[in-house]
Protein backbone atom coordinates (compact mmCIF):
# COMPACT_ATOMS: atom_id res chain seq x y z
CA UNK A 1 0.00 0.00 0.00
CA UNK A 2 1.32 3.42 -0.95
CA UNK A 3 1.40 6.16 1.72
CA UNK A 4 0.43 9.60 0.46
CA UNK A 5 2.57 12.33 2.03
CA UNK A 6 2.84 16.06 1.56
CA UNK A 7 6.03 18.11 1.23
CA UNK A 8 7.35 20.09 3.06
CA UNK A 9 7.25 17.24 5.60
CA UNK A 10 5.96 17.60 9.14
CA UNK A 11 7.89 16.05 11.99
CA UNK A 12 5.02 13.64 12.59
CA UNK A 13 4.96 12.48 8.96
CA UNK A 14 8.67 11.72 9.09
CA UNK A 15 8.40 9.80 12.38
CA UNK A 16 5.62 7.59 10.98
CA UNK A 17 7.55 6.47 7.91
CA UNK A 18 9.37 3.13 7.94
CA UNK A 19 12.05 1.67 5.68
CA UNK A 20 10.30 -0.23 2.87
CA UNK A 21 7.24 2.05 2.74
CA UNK A 22 6.19 2.97 -0.77
CA UNK A 23 5.24 6.65 -0.74
CA UNK A 24 3.75 9.11 -3.16
CA UNK A 25 4.87 12.66 -2.51
CA UNK A 26 2.82 15.74 -3.39
CA UNK A 27 3.68 19.36 -2.76
CA UNK A 28 6.84 21.43 -3.08
CA UNK A 29 10.34 19.94 -3.27
CA UNK A 30 13.69 21.38 -4.37
CA UNK A 31 16.31 20.09 -6.77
CA UNK A 32 19.89 20.09 -5.57
CA UNK A 33 22.94 18.03 -6.42
CA UNK A 34 26.72 18.23 -6.06
CA UNK A 35 27.53 21.88 -6.79
CA UNK A 36 24.34 23.25 -5.18
CA UNK A 37 25.05 21.26 -2.00
CA UNK A 38 28.50 22.76 -1.76
CA UNK A 39 26.96 26.24 -1.99
CA UNK A 40 24.18 25.54 0.52
CA UNK A 41 26.74 24.09 2.93
CA UNK A 42 29.02 27.10 2.59
CA UNK A 43 26.10 29.51 3.01
CA UNK A 44 25.07 27.83 6.28
CA UNK A 45 28.67 27.88 7.54
CA UNK A 46 28.99 31.57 6.69
CA UNK A 47 25.60 32.40 8.19
CA UNK A 48 24.25 33.65 4.86
CA UNK A 49 20.55 33.28 3.92
CA UNK A 50 19.55 30.20 1.89
CA UNK A 51 17.57 30.36 -1.37
CA UNK A 52 14.70 28.39 0.23
CA UNK A 53 13.47 27.49 3.71
CA UNK A 54 15.20 24.27 4.78
CA UNK A 55 12.78 23.56 7.62
CA UNK A 56 10.76 20.47 6.66
CA UNK A 57 12.13 20.66 3.13
CA UNK A 58 12.72 17.77 0.75
CA UNK A 59 15.69 17.94 -1.62
CA UNK A 60 15.63 15.82 -4.76
CA UNK A 61 19.09 14.91 -6.03
CA UNK A 62 18.51 15.56 -9.72
CA UNK A 63 19.98 17.46 -12.62
CA UNK A 64 17.17 17.29 -15.18
CA UNK A 65 17.70 17.28 -18.91
CA UNK A 66 16.40 20.46 -20.63
CA UNK A 67 12.64 20.70 -21.21
CA UNK A 68 11.54 20.28 -24.82
CA UNK A 69 8.95 22.80 -26.04
CA UNK A 70 5.68 22.03 -24.26
CA UNK A 71 7.34 20.12 -21.41
CA UNK A 72 7.44 21.31 -17.78
CA UNK A 73 10.82 19.68 -17.28
CA UNK A 74 13.02 17.23 -19.17
CA UNK A 75 13.82 13.74 -17.97
CA UNK A 76 14.33 13.87 -14.23
CA UNK A 77 15.52 10.74 -12.46
CA UNK A 78 17.63 10.64 -9.29
CA UNK A 79 21.41 10.89 -9.20
CA UNK A 80 23.64 8.87 -6.85
CA UNK A 81 23.33 10.20 -3.30
CA UNK A 82 26.65 9.44 -1.59
CA UNK A 83 28.26 12.45 -3.27
CA UNK A 84 26.04 14.66 -1.11
CA UNK A 85 27.03 12.84 2.11
CA UNK A 86 29.72 15.35 3.04
CA UNK A 87 27.11 18.10 3.13
CA UNK A 88 23.87 16.39 4.20
CA UNK A 89 24.41 16.16 8.00
CA UNK A 90 24.68 19.96 8.32
CA UNK A 91 21.60 20.47 6.13
CA UNK A 92 19.66 17.94 8.23
CA UNK A 93 20.76 19.72 11.40
CA UNK A 94 19.30 22.91 9.91
CA UNK A 95 15.89 21.43 9.22
CA UNK A 96 16.08 19.30 6.07
CA UNK A 97 13.60 16.42 6.56
CA UNK A 98 13.69 14.50 3.30
CA UNK A 99 16.18 13.53 0.61
CA UNK A 100 15.33 11.74 -2.63
CA UNK A 101 18.12 10.01 -4.55
CA UNK A 102 19.49 6.57 -5.25
CA UNK A 103 22.18 4.46 -3.68
CA UNK A 104 23.58 3.90 -0.23
CA UNK A 105 24.24 6.64 2.36
CA UNK A 106 27.18 6.70 4.76
CA UNK A 107 26.95 6.41 8.53
CA UNK A 108 27.22 10.14 9.40
CA UNK A 109 24.13 10.85 7.27
CA UNK A 110 22.21 7.94 8.78
CA UNK A 111 23.14 9.14 12.29
CA UNK A 112 22.00 12.70 11.48
CA UNK A 113 18.68 11.34 10.16
CA UNK A 114 18.14 9.52 13.46
CA UNK A 115 19.23 12.43 15.63
CA UNK A 116 17.33 15.26 13.92
CA UNK A 117 14.44 13.35 12.30
CA UNK A 118 14.86 12.98 8.55
CA UNK A 119 14.23 10.25 5.99
CA UNK A 120 15.97 9.15 2.82
CA UNK A 121 13.85 8.07 -0.13
CA UNK A 122 14.94 6.34 -3.33
CA UNK A 123 13.37 6.96 -6.69
CA UNK A 124 14.02 4.52 -9.54
CA UNK A 125 17.29 5.52 -11.15
CA UNK A 126 17.11 5.65 -14.90
CA UNK A 127 13.30 5.83 -14.98
CA UNK A 128 13.70 9.52 -15.73
CA UNK A 129 11.07 9.95 -18.45
CA UNK A 130 8.53 8.13 -16.27
CA UNK A 131 9.31 10.15 -13.13
CA UNK A 132 9.08 13.48 -15.01
CA UNK A 133 5.33 12.87 -15.39
CA UNK A 134 4.78 13.55 -11.68
CA UNK A 135 6.48 16.96 -11.88
CA UNK A 136 3.80 19.54 -12.62
CA UNK A 137 5.76 22.79 -12.37
CA UNK A 138 9.42 23.77 -12.23
CA UNK A 139 10.90 27.16 -11.40
CA UNK A 140 14.61 27.99 -11.11
CA UNK A 141 15.26 29.77 -7.81
CA UNK A 142 19.05 29.84 -7.35
CA UNK A 143 22.49 29.28 -8.86
CA UNK A 144 21.35 29.55 -12.50
CA UNK A 145 24.94 29.59 -13.68
CA UNK A 146 25.30 25.97 -12.60
CA UNK A 147 23.20 24.91 -15.58
CA UNK A 148 21.72 21.44 -14.90
CA UNK A 149 22.87 21.77 -11.27
CA UNK A 150 20.86 24.95 -10.55
CA UNK A 151 18.30 24.78 -7.72
CA UNK A 152 14.71 24.55 -8.92
CA UNK A 153 11.47 24.54 -6.97
CA UNK A 154 9.31 21.67 -8.17
CA UNK A 155 5.60 21.16 -7.65
CA UNK A 156 5.05 17.42 -7.65
CA UNK A 157 1.93 15.28 -7.62
CA UNK A 158 2.16 11.67 -6.50
CA UNK A 159 5.89 11.46 -7.00
CA UNK A 160 6.75 7.76 -6.51
CA UNK A 161 9.49 6.87 -4.03
CA UNK A 162 10.39 4.27 -1.44
CA UNK A 163 11.71 4.84 2.08
CA UNK A 164 15.29 3.54 2.38
CA UNK A 165 16.44 4.99 5.72
CA UNK A 166 13.93 5.92 8.41
CA UNK A 167 14.43 7.85 11.66
CA UNK A 168 14.91 4.57 13.55
CA UNK A 169 18.09 3.62 11.72
CA UNK A 170 16.60 0.95 9.45
CA UNK A 171 18.14 0.54 5.98
CA UNK A 172 16.08 -1.05 3.22
CA UNK A 173 19.12 -1.67 1.03
CA UNK A 174 20.78 -3.79 3.72
CA UNK A 175 17.58 -5.71 4.45
CA UNK A 176 16.69 -6.30 0.79
CA UNK A 177 20.11 -7.51 -0.26
CA UNK A 178 20.44 -9.85 2.75
CA UNK A 179 17.19 -11.54 1.72
CA UNK A 180 18.38 -12.48 -1.77
CA UNK A 181 22.10 -13.06 -1.20
CA UNK A 182 23.23 -16.63 -2.02
CA UNK A 183 26.66 -17.44 -0.64
Amino acid sequence: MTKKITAPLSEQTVRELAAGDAVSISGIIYTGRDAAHKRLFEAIQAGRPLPFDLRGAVIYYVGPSPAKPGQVIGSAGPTTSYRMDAYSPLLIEHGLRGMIGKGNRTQPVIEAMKKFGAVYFAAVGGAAALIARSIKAARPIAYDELGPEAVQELRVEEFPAIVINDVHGNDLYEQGVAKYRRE
Partner: protein
Amino acid sequence: MREIQFEQVRDTVARLCVEANCLLGDDVVRAFKAALETEESPTGREILKQCLENEEIARRNMVPMCQDTGWAVVWVELGSGVRIAGGELADAIQQGVAKGYTEGYLRKSIVRDPLRRENTKNNTPAIIYIDVVAGDGLKITVQPKGGGAENMSEVKMLSAADGAEGIKRFVVDRVARSKANPCPPVVVGVGIGGTFEKCAMLAKHALLREIGSVHPDPFYADMEQELLSRINRLGIGPQGLGGTTTALAVFIEAFPCHIATMPCAVNINCHAARHKSAEL
Protein backbone atom coordinates in the same frame (compact mmCIF):
# COMPACT_ATOMS: atom_id res chain seq x y z
CA MET B 1 40.62 8.43 -52.03
CA ARG B 2 36.94 8.45 -51.02
CA GLU B 3 35.71 11.79 -49.72
CA ILE B 4 33.15 12.18 -46.97
CA GLN B 5 31.84 15.64 -46.27
CA PHE B 6 32.56 17.24 -42.89
CA GLU B 7 28.89 18.18 -42.50
CA GLN B 8 27.78 14.60 -43.05
CA VAL B 9 30.02 13.40 -40.23
CA ARG B 10 28.87 16.23 -37.94
CA ASP B 11 25.18 15.63 -38.59
CA THR B 12 25.52 11.87 -38.22
CA VAL B 13 27.19 12.25 -34.83
CA ALA B 14 24.46 14.69 -33.74
CA ARG B 15 21.76 12.21 -34.75
CA LEU B 16 23.51 9.31 -33.00
CA CYS B 17 23.76 11.31 -29.75
CA VAL B 18 20.00 11.86 -29.72
CA GLU B 19 19.05 8.35 -30.84
CA ALA B 20 21.38 6.66 -28.35
CA ASN B 21 19.79 8.62 -25.50
CA CYS B 22 16.15 8.21 -26.51
CA LEU B 23 16.01 4.78 -28.15
CA LEU B 24 17.24 1.97 -25.93
CA GLY B 25 18.63 -1.01 -27.86
CA ASP B 26 16.40 -4.00 -28.54
CA ASP B 27 18.94 -6.23 -26.80
CA VAL B 28 18.51 -4.31 -23.52
CA VAL B 29 14.71 -4.42 -23.80
CA ARG B 30 14.87 -8.19 -24.40
CA ALA B 31 17.14 -8.53 -21.36
CA PHE B 32 14.65 -6.60 -19.17
CA LYS B 33 11.83 -8.89 -20.34
CA ALA B 34 13.89 -12.02 -19.72
CA ALA B 35 14.83 -10.76 -16.24
CA LEU B 36 11.17 -10.11 -15.48
CA GLU B 37 10.59 -13.86 -15.91
CA THR B 38 13.38 -14.90 -13.55
CA GLU B 39 13.58 -12.13 -10.94
CA GLU B 40 12.53 -13.49 -7.55
CA SER B 41 11.89 -10.19 -5.77
CA PRO B 42 8.44 -8.61 -6.28
CA THR B 43 10.01 -5.14 -5.84
CA GLY B 44 12.66 -6.11 -8.36
CA ARG B 45 10.01 -7.14 -10.87
CA GLU B 46 8.17 -3.85 -10.29
CA ILE B 47 11.37 -1.91 -11.05
CA LEU B 48 12.01 -3.91 -14.22
CA LYS B 49 8.45 -3.08 -15.33
CA GLN B 50 9.15 0.59 -14.69
CA CYS B 51 12.34 0.35 -16.77
CA LEU B 52 10.27 -1.05 -19.65
CA GLU B 53 7.57 1.60 -19.24
CA ASN B 54 10.23 4.30 -19.11
CA GLU B 55 11.84 2.97 -22.29
CA GLU B 56 8.47 3.17 -24.07
CA ILE B 57 7.84 6.78 -22.97
CA ALA B 58 11.33 7.78 -24.07
CA ARG B 59 10.94 6.10 -27.47
CA ARG B 60 7.47 7.49 -28.12
CA ASN B 61 8.27 11.10 -27.18
CA MET B 62 11.94 11.07 -28.23
CA VAL B 63 13.04 12.19 -24.76
CA PRO B 64 16.09 10.86 -22.92
CA MET B 65 15.45 7.64 -20.98
CA CYS B 66 17.74 9.03 -18.25
CA GLN B 67 18.44 12.64 -17.34
CA ASP B 68 22.15 11.81 -17.27
CA THR B 69 22.65 11.81 -21.01
CA GLY B 70 26.25 11.04 -20.39
CA TRP B 71 29.68 11.81 -21.60
CA ALA B 72 29.73 11.27 -25.38
CA VAL B 73 32.31 8.55 -25.97
CA VAL B 74 32.80 8.23 -29.73
CA TRP B 75 34.47 5.21 -31.32
CA VAL B 76 35.58 5.66 -34.92
CA GLU B 77 36.76 3.08 -37.44
CA LEU B 78 38.28 5.18 -40.18
CA GLY B 79 39.13 3.47 -43.45
CA SER B 80 42.62 4.39 -44.66
CA GLY B 81 41.08 5.21 -48.04
CA VAL B 82 38.81 7.92 -46.61
CA ARG B 83 39.43 11.63 -46.52
CA ILE B 84 37.17 14.11 -44.73
CA ALA B 85 36.44 17.02 -47.06
CA GLY B 86 35.95 20.49 -45.63
CA GLY B 87 37.56 20.06 -42.23
CA GLU B 88 39.10 17.77 -39.64
CA LEU B 89 37.41 14.55 -38.51
CA ALA B 90 37.82 15.37 -34.81
CA ASP B 91 36.27 18.83 -35.30
CA ALA B 92 33.30 17.28 -37.11
CA ILE B 93 32.75 14.91 -34.19
CA GLN B 94 33.05 17.65 -31.55
CA GLN B 95 30.67 19.90 -33.47
CA GLY B 96 28.28 16.98 -33.91
CA VAL B 97 28.21 16.31 -30.18
CA ALA B 98 27.58 20.01 -29.43
CA LYS B 99 24.79 20.07 -32.01
CA GLY B 100 23.18 16.83 -30.85
CA TYR B 101 23.22 17.75 -27.18
CA THR B 102 22.01 21.31 -27.79
CA GLU B 103 19.36 20.78 -30.47
CA GLY B 104 18.30 17.43 -29.01
CA TYR B 105 17.54 18.79 -25.52
CA LEU B 106 20.12 16.51 -23.92
CA ARG B 107 21.76 17.43 -20.62
CA LYS B 108 25.13 19.14 -20.68
CA SER B 109 27.15 17.30 -18.06
CA ILE B 110 30.76 18.25 -18.79
CA VAL B 111 32.77 20.77 -16.75
CA ARG B 112 35.84 22.47 -18.25
CA ASP B 113 38.19 21.63 -15.40
CA PRO B 114 37.92 18.85 -12.79
CA LEU B 115 38.59 21.19 -9.86
CA ARG B 116 37.16 24.50 -11.04
CA ARG B 117 34.04 22.83 -12.50
CA GLU B 118 32.55 25.34 -14.90
CA ASN B 119 30.05 23.72 -17.28
CA THR B 120 31.08 23.83 -20.97
CA LYS B 121 27.37 24.19 -21.81
CA ASN B 122 27.41 22.01 -24.94
CA ASN B 123 28.62 18.67 -23.53
CA THR B 124 31.96 18.86 -25.33
CA PRO B 125 34.62 17.72 -25.40
CA ALA B 126 33.64 14.26 -26.55
CA ILE B 127 36.04 11.42 -25.79
CA ILE B 128 37.15 10.22 -29.22
CA TYR B 129 38.92 6.96 -30.08
CA ILE B 130 39.98 6.67 -33.71
CA ASP B 131 41.13 3.38 -35.16
CA VAL B 132 42.49 3.44 -38.71
CA VAL B 133 41.42 0.31 -40.58
CA ALA B 134 41.70 -1.00 -44.14
CA GLY B 135 39.14 0.05 -46.75
CA ASP B 136 37.14 3.16 -47.53
CA GLY B 137 34.42 2.99 -44.89
CA LEU B 138 33.73 5.14 -41.84
CA LYS B 139 31.96 3.63 -38.85
CA ILE B 140 30.98 5.87 -35.95
CA THR B 141 29.62 4.64 -32.63
CA VAL B 142 28.34 7.02 -29.97
CA GLN B 143 28.25 5.60 -26.44
CA PRO B 144 26.77 8.11 -23.95
CA LYS B 145 28.27 7.12 -20.59
CA GLY B 146 26.54 8.15 -17.39
CA GLY B 147 28.55 9.36 -14.41
CA GLY B 148 26.98 7.27 -11.65
CA ALA B 149 28.06 3.93 -13.07
CA GLU B 150 31.39 5.31 -14.27
CA ASN B 151 32.16 6.19 -10.64
CA MET B 152 31.88 2.51 -9.69
CA SER B 153 34.59 1.48 -12.18
CA GLU B 154 38.18 0.55 -11.38
CA VAL B 155 41.50 -0.63 -12.78
CA LYS B 156 43.64 -3.03 -10.76
CA MET B 157 47.16 -4.19 -11.55
CA LEU B 158 47.08 -7.88 -10.67
CA SER B 159 49.91 -10.39 -11.01
CA ALA B 160 49.97 -13.47 -13.19
CA ALA B 161 50.04 -15.49 -9.97
CA ASP B 162 46.55 -14.19 -9.15
CA GLY B 163 45.27 -16.23 -12.10
CA ALA B 164 41.73 -16.42 -13.40
CA GLU B 165 40.34 -16.67 -9.87
CA GLY B 166 42.06 -13.39 -8.94
CA ILE B 167 40.40 -11.69 -11.91
CA LYS B 168 37.00 -13.17 -11.02
CA ARG B 169 37.27 -12.14 -7.37
CA PHE B 170 38.16 -8.56 -8.36
CA VAL B 171 35.27 -8.26 -10.83
CA VAL B 172 32.66 -9.70 -8.46
CA ASP B 173 33.97 -7.65 -5.55
CA ARG B 174 33.87 -4.44 -7.61
CA VAL B 175 30.18 -5.04 -8.38
CA ALA B 176 29.47 -6.04 -4.76
CA ARG B 177 31.00 -2.80 -3.44
CA SER B 178 28.99 -0.76 -5.95
CA LYS B 179 25.74 -1.88 -4.31
CA ALA B 180 22.79 0.30 -5.40
CA ASN B 181 24.92 3.15 -6.78
CA PRO B 182 25.37 2.34 -10.50
CA CYS B 183 21.63 1.75 -11.17
CA PRO B 184 21.50 -2.04 -11.35
CA PRO B 185 20.77 -4.22 -13.22
CA VAL B 186 24.13 -3.29 -14.71
CA VAL B 187 26.20 -4.39 -17.67
CA VAL B 188 29.76 -5.19 -16.63
CA GLY B 189 32.61 -4.50 -19.06
CA VAL B 190 35.86 -6.26 -18.18
CA GLY B 191 39.26 -5.56 -19.73
CA ILE B 192 42.07 -8.02 -19.10
CA GLY B 193 45.65 -7.43 -20.27
CA GLY B 194 47.33 -4.63 -22.17
CA THR B 195 48.84 -1.65 -20.41
CA PHE B 196 47.17 0.27 -17.58
CA GLU B 197 45.19 2.56 -19.92
CA LYS B 198 44.64 0.00 -22.69
CA CYS B 199 42.98 -2.27 -20.15
CA ALA B 200 40.49 0.45 -19.18
CA MET B 201 39.68 1.07 -22.84
CA LEU B 202 39.06 -2.63 -23.37
CA ALA B 203 36.56 -2.61 -20.51
CA LYS B 204 34.75 0.39 -21.98
CA HIS B 205 34.74 -1.09 -25.49
CA ALA B 206 33.39 -4.39 -24.14
CA LEU B 207 30.20 -2.53 -23.14
CA LEU B 208 29.34 -2.12 -26.82
CA ARG B 209 28.65 -5.82 -27.28
CA GLU B 210 25.09 -6.97 -27.89
CA ILE B 211 23.47 -8.42 -24.79
CA GLY B 212 22.88 -12.11 -25.43
CA SER B 213 25.92 -12.48 -27.67
CA VAL B 214 28.46 -15.18 -26.80
CA HIS B 215 32.21 -14.53 -26.57
CA PRO B 216 33.93 -16.18 -29.57
CA ASP B 217 36.59 -17.72 -27.29
CA PRO B 218 34.98 -20.55 -25.25
CA PHE B 219 37.42 -19.90 -22.37
CA TYR B 220 36.12 -16.35 -21.96
CA ALA B 221 32.54 -17.34 -22.81
CA ASP B 222 32.64 -19.66 -19.79
CA MET B 223 34.22 -16.98 -17.62
CA GLU B 224 31.51 -14.48 -18.58
CA GLN B 225 28.80 -16.97 -17.62
CA GLU B 226 30.44 -17.80 -14.31
CA LEU B 227 30.90 -14.12 -13.46
CA LEU B 228 27.29 -13.32 -14.35
CA SER B 229 26.08 -16.14 -12.15
CA ARG B 230 28.29 -15.10 -9.20
CA ILE B 231 27.24 -11.46 -9.55
CA ASN B 232 23.57 -12.39 -9.60
CA ARG B 233 24.01 -14.34 -6.37
CA LEU B 234 25.14 -11.16 -4.58
CA GLY B 235 21.50 -10.28 -3.86
CA ILE B 236 21.84 -6.61 -4.88
CA GLY B 237 19.01 -6.81 -7.43
CA PRO B 238 17.27 -4.09 -9.46
CA GLN B 239 18.11 -0.66 -7.99
CA GLY B 240 19.93 -2.40 -5.14
CA LEU B 241 16.72 -3.13 -3.26
CA GLY B 242 17.42 -6.86 -3.23
CA GLY B 243 16.88 -9.44 -5.92
CA THR B 244 18.39 -11.92 -8.31
CA THR B 245 19.03 -9.60 -11.27
CA THR B 246 22.10 -7.52 -10.43
CA ALA B 247 23.68 -7.71 -13.89
CA LEU B 248 22.21 -8.27 -17.33
CA ALA B 249 25.53 -9.28 -18.88
CA VAL B 250 29.28 -9.52 -18.32
CA PHE B 251 31.47 -8.82 -21.35
CA ILE B 252 35.20 -9.52 -21.38
CA GLU B 253 37.83 -8.21 -23.78
CA ALA B 254 41.31 -9.69 -23.40
CA PHE B 255 44.55 -8.41 -24.95
CA PRO B 256 48.20 -9.52 -24.99
CA CYS B 257 50.06 -8.83 -21.78
CA HIS B 258 53.57 -7.94 -20.56
CA ILE B 259 55.33 -10.85 -18.81
CA ALA B 260 55.36 -8.86 -15.55
CA THR B 261 51.73 -7.70 -15.54
CA MET B 262 48.06 -8.74 -15.51
CA PRO B 263 45.91 -5.62 -15.35
CA CYS B 264 42.15 -5.93 -15.03
CA ALA B 265 39.62 -3.12 -15.51
CA VAL B 266 35.95 -3.13 -14.64
CA ASN B 267 33.77 -0.52 -16.33
CA ILE B 268 30.21 -0.61 -15.12
CA ASN B 269 27.23 0.52 -17.20
CA CYS B 270 23.86 1.29 -15.68
CA HIS B 271 20.77 -0.44 -17.08
CA ALA B 272 20.58 2.35 -19.70
CA ALA B 273 23.20 0.48 -21.74
CA ARG B 274 23.22 3.00 -24.58
CA HIS B 275 25.10 3.08 -27.87
CA LYS B 276 24.23 3.71 -31.51
CA SER B 277 26.34 3.23 -34.64
CA ALA B 278 26.28 4.42 -38.24
CA GLU B 279 28.36 3.51 -41.26
CA LEU B 280 29.04 6.20 -43.83
